[in-house]
Protein backbone atom coordinates (compact mmCIF):
# COMPACT_ATOMS: atom_id res chain seq x y z
CA UNK A 1 0.00 0.00 0.00
CA UNK A 2 2.73 2.43 0.87
CA UNK A 3 6.37 2.82 0.30
CA UNK A 4 8.80 4.20 2.84
CA UNK A 5 9.34 7.87 2.52
CA UNK A 6 12.88 8.74 1.63
CA UNK A 7 15.17 11.67 2.12
CA UNK A 8 14.41 13.61 -1.06
CA UNK A 9 10.88 14.28 0.19
CA UNK A 10 12.19 16.46 2.92
CA UNK A 11 12.05 20.05 1.86
CA UNK A 12 15.22 20.72 3.76
CA UNK A 13 17.04 18.43 1.32
CA UNK A 14 18.95 15.24 1.94
CA UNK A 15 20.83 16.88 4.75
CA UNK A 16 17.65 17.14 6.83
CA UNK A 17 15.75 20.11 8.17
CA UNK A 18 17.08 23.63 8.23
CA UNK A 19 19.31 24.67 11.09
CA UNK A 20 17.50 25.26 14.36
CA UNK A 21 19.08 28.66 14.53
CA UNK A 22 17.91 30.28 11.34
CA UNK A 23 15.37 33.05 12.02
CA UNK A 24 12.49 31.41 10.14
CA UNK A 25 12.81 28.22 12.17
CA UNK A 26 12.99 30.10 15.43
CA UNK A 27 9.84 31.99 14.47
CA UNK A 28 8.03 28.73 13.71
CA UNK A 29 9.23 27.17 16.94
CA UNK A 30 7.91 30.19 18.77
CA UNK A 31 4.57 29.86 17.01
CA UNK A 32 4.34 26.20 18.01
CA UNK A 33 5.12 27.12 21.59
CA UNK A 34 2.44 29.79 21.54
CA UNK A 35 -0.18 27.37 20.21
CA UNK A 36 0.68 24.84 22.93
CA UNK A 37 0.63 27.50 25.62
CA UNK A 38 -2.69 28.80 24.33
CA UNK A 39 -4.31 25.37 24.59
CA UNK A 40 -2.89 24.81 28.07
CA UNK A 41 -4.05 28.25 29.20
CA UNK A 42 -7.57 27.63 27.90
CA UNK A 43 -7.62 24.30 29.75
CA UNK A 44 -6.40 25.92 32.96
CA UNK A 45 -9.13 28.55 32.64
CA UNK A 46 -11.79 25.86 32.14
CA UNK A 47 -10.58 24.06 35.25
CA UNK A 48 -10.90 27.28 37.27
CA UNK A 49 -7.18 27.46 38.05
CA UNK A 50 -6.95 31.01 36.72
CA UNK A 51 -10.15 32.18 38.43
CA UNK A 52 -9.64 32.37 42.19
CA UNK A 53 -13.06 33.99 42.56
CA UNK A 54 -15.01 31.33 40.69
CA UNK A 55 -17.20 29.25 43.00
CA UNK A 56 -15.97 25.75 42.28
CA UNK A 57 -17.19 22.58 43.98
CA UNK A 58 -13.93 22.43 45.92
CA UNK A 59 -14.46 25.99 47.18
CA UNK A 60 -18.02 25.15 48.22
CA UNK A 61 -16.58 22.26 50.26
CA UNK A 62 -14.02 24.69 51.74
CA UNK A 63 -16.83 27.02 52.82
CA UNK A 64 -18.74 24.18 54.48
CA UNK A 65 -15.56 23.06 56.24
CA UNK A 66 -14.82 26.63 57.35
CA UNK A 67 -18.22 26.81 59.03
CA UNK A 68 -18.71 23.27 60.33
CA UNK A 69 -15.18 21.87 60.57
CA UNK A 70 -13.71 18.88 58.80
CA UNK A 71 -15.33 15.53 59.54
CA UNK A 72 -13.77 12.81 57.37
CA UNK A 73 -16.11 10.22 55.97
CA UNK A 74 -19.29 12.24 56.57
CA UNK A 75 -21.47 14.13 54.13
CA UNK A 76 -20.27 17.73 53.96
CA UNK A 77 -23.77 18.95 54.72
CA UNK A 78 -26.68 17.24 56.48
CA UNK A 79 -23.97 15.17 58.14
CA UNK A 80 -25.98 13.82 61.08
CA UNK A 81 -28.55 11.35 59.89
CA UNK A 82 -30.10 7.92 59.90
CA UNK A 83 -31.11 5.57 57.09
CA UNK A 84 -34.71 4.47 56.62
CA UNK A 85 -36.47 2.17 54.19
CA UNK A 86 -39.99 1.55 53.01
CA UNK A 87 -42.06 2.06 49.91
CA UNK A 88 -43.98 4.62 47.86
CA UNK A 89 -47.47 3.68 46.72
CA UNK A 90 -48.57 5.81 43.79
CA UNK A 91 -52.20 6.94 43.68
CA UNK A 92 -52.04 7.21 39.90
CA UNK A 93 -53.30 10.79 40.15
CA UNK A 94 -50.02 12.36 39.02
CA UNK A 95 -49.77 10.08 35.97
CA UNK A 96 -51.56 12.64 33.81
CA UNK A 97 -48.93 15.23 34.77
CA UNK A 98 -45.80 13.09 34.50
CA UNK A 99 -44.95 9.94 32.57
CA UNK A 100 -42.46 8.93 35.30
CA UNK A 101 -42.70 5.22 36.12
CA UNK A 102 -42.99 6.09 39.81
CA UNK A 103 -46.43 7.66 39.19
CA UNK A 104 -47.95 4.61 37.55
CA UNK A 105 -50.21 2.81 39.99
CA UNK A 106 -47.37 0.72 41.39
CA UNK A 107 -45.47 0.30 44.63
CA UNK A 108 -41.84 1.48 44.49
CA UNK A 109 -39.11 0.54 46.95
CA UNK A 110 -37.60 3.43 48.91
CA UNK A 111 -34.21 3.92 50.56
CA UNK A 112 -34.31 7.15 52.53
CA UNK A 113 -32.50 9.21 55.09
CA UNK A 114 -33.49 11.70 57.78
CA UNK A 115 -30.91 14.30 58.72
CA UNK A 116 -30.20 17.64 60.32
CA UNK A 117 -28.89 20.45 58.16
CA UNK A 118 -25.27 21.38 58.79
CA UNK A 119 -21.97 19.66 58.40
CA UNK A 120 -21.50 18.62 62.05
CA UNK A 121 -22.14 14.86 62.35
CA UNK A 122 -22.37 14.96 66.16
CA UNK A 123 -24.35 18.18 66.68
CA UNK A 124 -26.99 18.17 69.37
CA UNK A 125 -30.60 17.96 68.22
CA UNK A 126 -32.66 21.11 68.80
CA UNK A 127 -36.20 22.07 67.81
CA UNK A 128 -35.36 24.86 65.36
CA UNK A 129 -32.62 23.05 63.45
CA UNK A 130 -33.58 22.38 59.86
CA UNK A 131 -34.56 18.74 59.26
CA UNK A 132 -34.40 16.95 55.97
CA UNK A 133 -35.80 13.84 54.34
CA UNK A 134 -33.88 12.27 51.45
CA UNK A 135 -35.47 9.66 49.23
CA UNK A 136 -34.41 7.26 46.54
CA UNK A 137 -37.61 5.91 44.98
CA UNK A 138 -37.11 2.85 42.77
CA UNK A 139 -40.11 1.70 40.74
CA UNK A 140 -40.03 -1.99 39.80
CA UNK A 141 -39.73 -1.35 36.05
CA UNK A 142 -38.46 2.11 35.45
CA UNK A 143 -36.07 4.87 36.29
CA UNK A 144 -35.45 5.93 39.87
CA UNK A 145 -36.13 9.33 41.41
CA UNK A 146 -33.97 10.92 44.09
CA UNK A 147 -34.64 13.99 46.19
CA UNK A 148 -33.44 15.77 49.30
CA UNK A 149 -36.28 17.81 50.80
CA UNK A 150 -36.36 20.10 53.82
CA UNK A 151 -38.82 21.22 56.51
CA UNK A 152 -38.62 24.91 55.66
CA UNK A 153 -41.06 26.91 53.50
CA UNK A 154 -38.48 28.38 51.10
CA UNK A 155 -34.78 28.00 50.37
CA UNK A 156 -32.55 30.69 51.82
CA UNK A 157 -30.59 31.67 48.70
CA UNK A 158 -31.20 32.08 44.99
CA UNK A 159 -27.84 30.81 43.80
CA UNK A 160 -24.97 28.66 44.98
CA UNK A 161 -22.81 31.74 45.42
CA UNK A 162 -25.42 33.46 47.57
CA UNK A 163 -25.74 30.30 49.68
CA UNK A 164 -21.96 30.11 50.13
CA UNK A 165 -21.80 33.79 51.07
CA UNK A 166 -24.67 33.29 53.54
CA UNK A 167 -22.85 30.34 55.12
CA UNK A 168 -19.70 32.39 55.58
CA UNK A 169 -21.56 35.52 56.77
CA UNK A 170 -23.56 33.65 59.42
CA UNK A 171 -20.89 31.25 60.64
CA UNK A 172 -20.52 31.25 64.43
CA UNK A 173 -17.90 33.53 65.86
CA UNK A 174 -15.38 31.33 67.72
CA UNK A 175 -15.45 33.74 70.69
CA UNK A 176 -19.22 33.86 71.24
CA UNK A 177 -20.45 30.75 69.44
CA UNK A 178 -23.02 32.93 67.69
CA UNK A 179 -23.05 34.65 64.30
CA UNK A 180 -21.23 37.95 64.30
CA UNK A 181 -23.80 40.79 63.86
CA UNK A 182 -21.13 42.95 62.28
CA UNK A 183 -20.91 40.41 59.45
CA UNK A 184 -24.56 39.29 59.27
CA UNK A 185 -26.03 42.79 59.17
CA UNK A 186 -24.24 44.08 56.09
CA UNK A 187 -24.76 40.75 54.31
CA UNK A 188 -28.52 40.79 54.83
CA UNK A 189 -28.68 44.47 53.89
CA UNK A 190 -27.08 43.58 50.59
CA UNK A 191 -29.26 40.49 50.09
CA UNK A 192 -32.88 41.48 50.84
CA UNK A 193 -34.13 38.28 49.20
CA UNK A 194 -32.11 36.21 51.72
CA UNK A 195 -33.38 38.36 54.60
CA UNK A 196 -36.97 37.81 53.43
CA UNK A 197 -36.43 34.05 53.06
CA UNK A 198 -34.79 33.79 56.50
CA UNK A 199 -37.77 35.61 58.00
CA UNK A 200 -40.13 33.04 56.44
CA UNK A 201 -37.94 30.19 57.70
CA UNK A 202 -37.80 31.75 61.18
CA UNK A 203 -41.60 32.13 61.30
CA UNK A 204 -42.38 28.55 60.30
CA UNK A 205 -44.34 26.36 62.68
CA UNK A 206 -41.95 23.86 64.25
CA UNK A 207 -43.25 20.34 64.63
CA UNK A 208 -42.18 18.17 67.57
CA UNK A 209 -40.22 15.63 65.55
CA UNK A 210 -39.13 14.09 62.26
CA UNK A 211 -42.27 11.96 61.99
CA UNK A 212 -44.85 14.74 61.98
CA UNK A 213 -42.82 17.17 59.92
CA UNK A 214 -43.56 18.42 56.40
CA UNK A 215 -40.67 18.27 53.92
CA UNK A 216 -40.66 20.43 50.78
CA UNK A 217 -38.80 20.33 47.50
CA UNK A 218 -38.29 24.13 47.71
CA UNK A 219 -36.99 24.04 44.16
CA UNK A 220 -39.27 23.99 41.15
CA UNK A 221 -39.08 21.12 38.69
CA UNK A 222 -41.06 20.24 35.59
CA UNK A 223 -43.38 17.30 35.19
CA UNK A 224 -43.67 16.11 31.60
CA UNK A 225 -46.54 13.87 30.62
CA UNK A 226 -46.87 11.32 27.81
CA UNK A 227 -48.08 14.05 25.44
CA UNK A 228 -44.99 16.15 26.15
CA UNK A 229 -46.91 18.76 28.17
CA UNK A 230 -44.58 20.36 30.71
CA UNK A 231 -45.97 21.60 34.05
CA UNK A 232 -43.99 23.57 36.66
CA UNK A 233 -44.27 21.86 40.03
CA UNK A 234 -43.03 21.91 43.59
CA UNK A 235 -43.90 19.18 46.05
CA UNK A 236 -44.04 18.30 49.69
CA UNK A 237 -44.29 15.24 51.89
CA UNK A 238 -47.15 15.91 54.32
CA UNK A 239 -47.19 13.73 57.48
CA UNK A 240 -50.14 11.40 58.11
CA UNK A 241 -49.39 10.90 61.80
CA UNK A 242 -49.86 13.47 64.55
CA UNK A 243 -46.92 14.84 66.46
CA UNK A 244 -45.53 13.35 69.63
CA UNK A 245 -45.31 15.23 72.89
CA UNK A 246 -43.63 18.54 72.21
CA UNK A 247 -42.10 18.77 75.67
CA UNK A 248 -39.37 16.15 75.46
CA UNK A 249 -36.67 18.21 73.82
CA UNK A 250 -33.77 17.14 75.97
CA UNK A 251 -30.93 14.88 75.03
CA UNK A 252 -28.23 15.07 72.44
CA UNK A 253 -30.18 12.93 69.95
CA UNK A 254 -33.78 13.45 71.06
CA UNK A 255 -35.14 14.02 67.54
CA UNK A 256 -33.57 10.82 66.26
CA UNK A 257 -34.53 8.91 69.44
CA UNK A 258 -38.16 9.94 68.94
CA UNK A 259 -38.03 8.90 65.29
CA UNK A 260 -36.56 5.50 66.14
CA UNK A 261 -39.13 4.99 68.91
CA UNK A 262 -41.98 5.82 66.54
CA UNK A 263 -40.62 3.57 63.79
CA UNK A 264 -40.22 0.82 66.40
CA UNK A 265 -43.94 1.01 67.13
CA UNK A 266 -45.48 1.45 63.69
CA UNK A 267 -44.65 2.57 60.15
CA UNK A 268 -44.70 6.31 59.43
CA UNK A 269 -46.47 7.69 56.35
CA UNK A 270 -46.48 10.87 54.32
CA UNK A 271 -48.66 12.02 51.42
CA UNK A 272 -46.75 13.28 48.41
CA UNK A 273 -48.56 16.49 47.52
CA UNK A 274 -47.58 17.97 44.16
CA UNK A 275 -48.27 21.70 43.77
CA UNK A 276 -49.09 22.80 40.23
CA UNK A 277 -47.48 26.13 39.45
CA UNK A 278 -49.24 28.81 37.44
CA UNK A 279 -47.38 30.30 34.48
CA UNK A 280 -46.80 33.42 36.56
CA UNK A 281 -45.20 31.52 39.48
CA UNK A 282 -41.44 31.96 39.83
CA UNK A 283 -39.54 28.77 39.03
CA UNK A 284 -36.02 30.20 38.98
CA UNK A 285 -36.07 31.58 42.53
CA UNK A 286 -36.54 29.09 45.41
CA UNK A 287 -36.59 31.90 47.99
CA UNK A 288 -40.04 32.96 46.72
CA UNK A 289 -43.06 30.98 47.94
CA UNK A 290 -45.83 30.19 45.50
CA UNK A 291 -49.33 31.45 46.33
CA UNK A 292 -51.05 29.20 48.85
CA UNK A 293 -54.13 28.61 46.67
CA UNK A 294 -52.33 26.61 43.98
CA UNK A 295 -53.91 23.30 43.05
CA UNK A 296 -52.35 20.25 44.71
CA UNK A 297 -52.43 16.65 43.50
CA UNK A 298 -51.98 13.79 45.91
CA UNK A 299 -49.51 11.67 43.99
CA UNK A 300 -49.21 8.82 46.47
CA UNK A 301 -48.19 7.71 49.91
CA UNK A 302 -44.71 7.21 51.31
CA UNK A 303 -44.43 4.66 54.09
CA UNK A 304 -41.24 4.10 56.07
CA UNK A 305 -41.04 1.11 58.38
CA UNK A 306 -37.34 0.35 58.87
CA UNK A 307 -34.50 2.36 60.38
CA UNK A 308 -30.82 1.61 59.95
CA UNK A 309 -27.71 3.29 61.27
CA UNK A 310 -25.62 4.95 58.59
CA UNK A 311 -22.88 2.58 59.72
CA UNK A 312 -23.68 -0.26 57.36
CA UNK A 313 -27.02 1.23 56.30
CA UNK A 314 -28.29 1.30 52.75
CA UNK A 315 -28.41 5.10 52.47
CA UNK A 316 -24.72 5.65 53.20
CA UNK A 317 -23.29 4.60 49.87
CA UNK A 318 -25.50 6.81 47.75
CA UNK A 319 -25.91 10.51 47.26
CA UNK A 320 -29.37 12.09 47.16
CA UNK A 321 -28.58 14.03 44.03
CA UNK A 322 -31.70 16.04 43.12
CA UNK A 323 -30.86 15.71 39.42
CA UNK A 324 -31.24 11.94 39.44
CA UNK A 325 -34.62 12.23 37.78
CA UNK A 326 -36.66 9.78 35.73
CA UNK A 327 -37.99 10.63 32.27
CA UNK A 328 -41.13 12.62 33.07
CA UNK A 329 -39.44 14.82 35.68
CA UNK A 330 -36.99 17.50 34.52
CA UNK A 331 -35.10 20.37 36.11
CA UNK A 332 -36.56 23.87 35.78
CA UNK A 333 -34.57 27.08 35.47
CA UNK A 334 -33.99 26.95 39.25
CA UNK A 335 -30.18 26.97 39.59
CA UNK A 336 -30.06 25.31 43.01
CA UNK A 337 -30.59 21.64 42.01
CA UNK A 338 -27.62 21.80 39.63
CA UNK A 339 -25.50 23.39 42.34
CA UNK A 340 -26.51 20.68 44.79
CA UNK A 341 -25.86 17.95 42.24
CA UNK A 342 -22.35 19.31 41.67
CA UNK A 343 -21.64 19.74 45.38
CA UNK A 344 -22.99 16.29 46.26
CA UNK A 345 -20.72 14.68 43.66
CA UNK A 346 -17.70 16.35 45.26
CA UNK A 347 -18.86 15.58 48.81
CA UNK A 348 -19.46 11.93 47.86
CA UNK A 349 -16.04 11.65 46.24
CA UNK A 350 -14.37 13.06 49.35
CA UNK A 351 -16.25 11.10 51.99
CA UNK A 352 -16.27 7.77 50.14
CA UNK A 353 -12.47 7.88 50.04
CA UNK A 354 -12.07 8.69 53.74
CA UNK A 355 -12.11 6.68 56.96
CA UNK A 356 -15.23 7.57 58.92
CA UNK A 357 -15.85 7.63 62.66
CA UNK A 358 -18.95 5.78 63.89
CA UNK A 359 -22.11 7.80 63.22
CA UNK A 360 -24.00 9.53 66.04
CA UNK A 361 -26.95 7.21 65.49
CA UNK A 362 -25.42 3.79 66.08
CA UNK A 363 -26.67 0.31 65.18
CA UNK A 364 -27.09 -0.35 68.92
CA UNK A 365 -29.45 2.62 69.28
CA UNK A 366 -31.55 1.25 66.42
CA UNK A 367 -31.57 -2.28 67.81
CA UNK A 368 -32.78 -1.00 71.19
CA UNK A 369 -35.89 0.50 69.56
CA UNK A 370 -36.72 -2.23 67.09
CA UNK A 371 -40.01 -4.02 67.17
CA UNK A 372 -39.71 -7.41 68.90
Amino acid sequence: MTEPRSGPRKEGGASGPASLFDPGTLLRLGAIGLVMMGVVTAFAWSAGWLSPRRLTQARMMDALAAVDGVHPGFRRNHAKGVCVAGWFESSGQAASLSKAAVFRPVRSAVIGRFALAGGMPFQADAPAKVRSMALRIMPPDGAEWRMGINDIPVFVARTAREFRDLLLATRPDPATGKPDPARVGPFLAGHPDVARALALVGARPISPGFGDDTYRSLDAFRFINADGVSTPVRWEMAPMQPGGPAGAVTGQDYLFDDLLTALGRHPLSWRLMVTIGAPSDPTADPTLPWPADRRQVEAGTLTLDVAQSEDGGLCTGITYDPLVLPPGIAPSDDPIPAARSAAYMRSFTLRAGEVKLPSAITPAMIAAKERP
Partner: protein
Amino acid sequence: MNPVVRFSALARVLHWLMAAMVLGMLFVGVFMAATEGPAYARLVALHRPMGVAILLLACVRLANRLLVPPPPLPAGMPRVQRIAALGSHIMLYALMFAMPLVGWGMLSAGAYPVVLWGPVRLPPILPHDPALFAALRHLHGWLAFTLFGVIVIHLGAALLHGLILRDGVFAAMASWRRGRRDGI
Protein backbone atom coordinates in the same frame (compact mmCIF):
# COMPACT_ATOMS: atom_id res chain seq x y z
CA MET B 1 5.81 19.71 -2.25
CA ASN B 2 6.04 16.10 -3.15
CA PRO B 3 2.85 14.14 -2.81
CA VAL B 4 2.64 12.44 0.54
CA VAL B 5 1.23 9.11 1.58
CA ARG B 6 -1.80 9.93 3.65
CA PHE B 7 -3.67 7.95 6.25
CA SER B 8 -6.75 6.23 4.89
CA ALA B 9 -9.81 8.44 4.49
CA LEU B 10 -11.58 6.67 7.36
CA ALA B 11 -8.54 7.09 9.61
CA ARG B 12 -8.40 10.81 8.83
CA VAL B 13 -12.13 11.33 9.40
CA LEU B 14 -11.98 9.43 12.69
CA HIS B 15 -8.85 11.31 13.78
CA TRP B 16 -10.27 14.79 13.25
CA LEU B 17 -13.75 13.94 14.51
CA MET B 18 -12.37 12.37 17.65
CA ALA B 19 -9.81 15.13 18.10
CA ALA B 20 -12.67 17.61 18.35
CA MET B 21 -14.76 15.32 20.56
CA VAL B 22 -11.97 14.31 22.94
CA LEU B 23 -10.61 17.82 23.33
CA GLY B 24 -14.15 19.12 23.77
CA MET B 25 -14.83 16.46 26.42
CA LEU B 26 -11.66 17.36 28.31
CA PHE B 27 -12.67 21.03 28.43
CA VAL B 28 -16.27 20.17 29.37
CA GLY B 29 -15.00 17.74 31.98
CA VAL B 30 -12.62 20.06 33.82
CA PHE B 31 -15.14 22.87 33.64
CA MET B 32 -18.05 20.86 35.02
CA ALA B 33 -15.88 19.45 37.80
CA ALA B 34 -15.14 23.04 38.85
CA THR B 35 -18.50 24.78 38.69
CA GLU B 36 -21.49 25.26 40.94
CA GLY B 37 -23.32 27.07 38.16
CA PRO B 38 -26.44 26.09 36.20
CA ALA B 39 -24.33 24.83 33.25
CA TYR B 40 -23.35 21.82 35.38
CA ALA B 41 -26.56 19.92 34.68
CA ARG B 42 -26.41 20.44 30.92
CA LEU B 43 -22.71 19.63 30.73
CA VAL B 44 -23.07 16.39 32.71
CA ALA B 45 -26.00 15.42 30.47
CA LEU B 46 -23.75 16.04 27.45
CA HIS B 47 -20.66 14.42 28.96
CA ARG B 48 -22.16 10.94 29.38
CA PRO B 49 -23.45 10.31 25.82
CA MET B 50 -20.35 11.97 24.34
CA GLY B 51 -18.14 9.64 26.37
CA VAL B 52 -20.02 6.60 25.15
CA ALA B 53 -19.84 7.90 21.56
CA ILE B 54 -16.06 8.26 21.93
CA LEU B 55 -15.83 4.71 23.29
CA LEU B 56 -17.72 3.37 20.26
CA LEU B 57 -15.65 5.44 17.82
CA ALA B 58 -12.46 4.27 19.56
CA CYS B 59 -13.47 0.66 18.83
CA VAL B 60 -13.98 1.47 15.13
CA ARG B 61 -10.71 3.37 15.09
CA LEU B 62 -8.68 0.62 16.71
CA ALA B 63 -10.11 -1.94 14.27
CA ASN B 64 -9.29 0.35 11.36
CA ARG B 65 -5.78 0.94 12.67
CA LEU B 66 -5.16 -2.81 12.93
CA LEU B 67 -6.70 -3.62 9.55
CA VAL B 68 -5.28 -0.69 7.56
CA PRO B 69 -1.66 -0.01 8.49
CA PRO B 70 -0.78 3.68 8.82
CA PRO B 71 1.79 5.24 6.50
CA PRO B 72 5.30 4.42 7.69
CA LEU B 73 7.35 7.03 9.46
CA PRO B 74 10.10 8.71 7.42
CA ALA B 75 13.04 6.42 6.79
CA GLY B 76 15.60 8.70 8.39
CA MET B 77 13.72 9.29 11.65
CA PRO B 78 15.88 8.73 14.75
CA ARG B 79 15.11 5.76 16.96
CA VAL B 80 14.18 7.93 19.95
CA GLN B 81 11.56 9.76 17.88
CA ARG B 82 10.13 6.48 16.62
CA ILE B 83 9.78 5.18 20.17
CA ALA B 84 8.20 8.48 21.27
CA ALA B 85 5.76 8.34 18.34
CA LEU B 86 4.77 4.75 19.06
CA GLY B 87 4.55 5.30 22.80
CA SER B 88 2.42 8.42 22.55
CA HIS B 89 0.06 6.75 20.09
CA ILE B 90 -0.34 3.73 22.37
CA MET B 91 -1.12 6.11 25.24
CA LEU B 92 -3.64 8.04 23.16
CA TYR B 93 -5.44 4.86 22.14
CA ALA B 94 -5.35 3.41 25.68
CA LEU B 95 -6.74 6.62 27.18
CA MET B 96 -9.48 6.90 24.54
CA PHE B 97 -10.74 3.56 25.87
CA ALA B 98 -9.88 4.09 29.53
CA MET B 99 -11.57 7.47 30.01
CA PRO B 100 -15.13 6.42 29.08
CA LEU B 101 -14.76 3.03 30.76
CA VAL B 102 -13.51 4.57 34.02
CA GLY B 103 -16.32 7.15 33.85
CA TRP B 104 -18.93 4.45 33.29
CA GLY B 105 -17.41 2.29 36.03
CA MET B 106 -17.27 5.23 38.41
CA LEU B 107 -20.99 6.01 37.99
CA SER B 108 -21.73 2.30 38.40
CA ALA B 109 -19.75 2.06 41.65
CA GLY B 110 -21.41 5.24 42.94
CA ALA B 111 -24.92 3.83 42.19
CA TYR B 112 -25.61 6.70 39.82
CA PRO B 113 -27.90 5.78 36.92
CA VAL B 114 -25.90 5.94 33.67
CA VAL B 115 -28.33 8.02 31.63
CA LEU B 116 -27.51 8.49 27.97
CA TRP B 117 -30.55 10.23 26.55
CA GLY B 118 -34.06 10.31 27.96
CA PRO B 119 -35.06 6.75 28.77
CA VAL B 120 -31.86 5.23 27.35
CA ARG B 121 -29.68 4.04 30.21
CA LEU B 122 -26.64 1.80 30.35
CA PRO B 123 -26.38 -1.02 32.87
CA PRO B 124 -23.77 -0.76 35.63
CA ILE B 125 -20.44 -2.41 34.78
CA LEU B 126 -19.18 -2.53 38.38
CA PRO B 127 -20.80 -3.38 41.71
CA HIS B 128 -22.03 -0.60 44.01
CA ASP B 129 -18.97 0.25 46.13
CA PRO B 130 -18.47 3.83 47.44
CA ALA B 131 -14.72 3.44 48.05
CA LEU B 132 -14.31 2.18 44.50
CA PHE B 133 -16.39 5.14 43.30
CA ALA B 134 -14.04 7.57 45.08
CA ALA B 135 -10.94 5.86 43.64
CA LEU B 136 -12.36 5.83 40.10
CA ARG B 137 -13.52 9.45 40.35
CA HIS B 138 -9.97 10.51 41.22
CA LEU B 139 -8.57 8.23 38.52
CA HIS B 140 -10.97 9.76 35.96
CA GLY B 141 -9.53 13.19 36.76
CA TRP B 142 -5.89 12.14 36.70
CA LEU B 143 -6.32 10.22 33.45
CA ALA B 144 -7.95 13.32 31.98
CA PHE B 145 -4.93 15.44 32.89
CA THR B 146 -2.64 12.76 31.44
CA LEU B 147 -4.66 12.57 28.23
CA PHE B 148 -4.64 16.34 27.91
CA GLY B 149 -0.87 16.38 28.42
CA VAL B 150 -0.29 13.72 25.77
CA ILE B 151 -2.60 15.58 23.36
CA VAL B 152 -0.67 18.83 23.86
CA ILE B 153 2.63 17.01 23.20
CA HIS B 154 1.04 15.28 20.19
CA LEU B 155 -0.09 18.68 18.89
CA GLY B 156 3.36 20.17 19.42
CA ALA B 157 5.05 17.24 17.69
CA ALA B 158 2.60 17.41 14.79
CA LEU B 159 3.30 21.12 14.30
CA LEU B 160 7.03 20.46 14.57
CA HIS B 161 6.71 17.94 11.72
CA GLY B 162 4.48 20.25 9.72
CA LEU B 163 6.31 23.55 10.15
CA ILE B 164 9.94 22.65 10.75
CA LEU B 165 10.81 19.07 9.83
CA ARG B 166 8.38 19.03 6.86
CA ASP B 167 8.88 15.32 6.46
CA GLY B 168 5.35 14.45 5.37
CA VAL B 169 4.28 13.17 8.79
CA PHE B 170 1.95 16.13 9.38
CA ALA B 171 0.59 16.06 5.82
CA ALA B 172 -0.20 12.36 6.14
CA MET B 173 -2.99 13.30 8.53
CA ALA B 174 -3.64 16.95 7.76
CA SER B 175 -3.25 17.41 3.99
CA TRP B 176 -6.34 18.14 1.92
CA ARG B 177 -4.44 17.28 -1.28
CA ARG B 178 -4.73 13.80 -2.64
CA GLY B 179 -1.52 11.91 -2.16
CA ARG B 180 0.40 10.04 -4.82
CA ARG B 181 -0.16 6.70 -3.17
CA ASP B 182 -2.85 7.32 -0.58
CA GLY B 183 -3.86 4.55 1.69
CA ILE B 184 -7.37 3.36 1.06
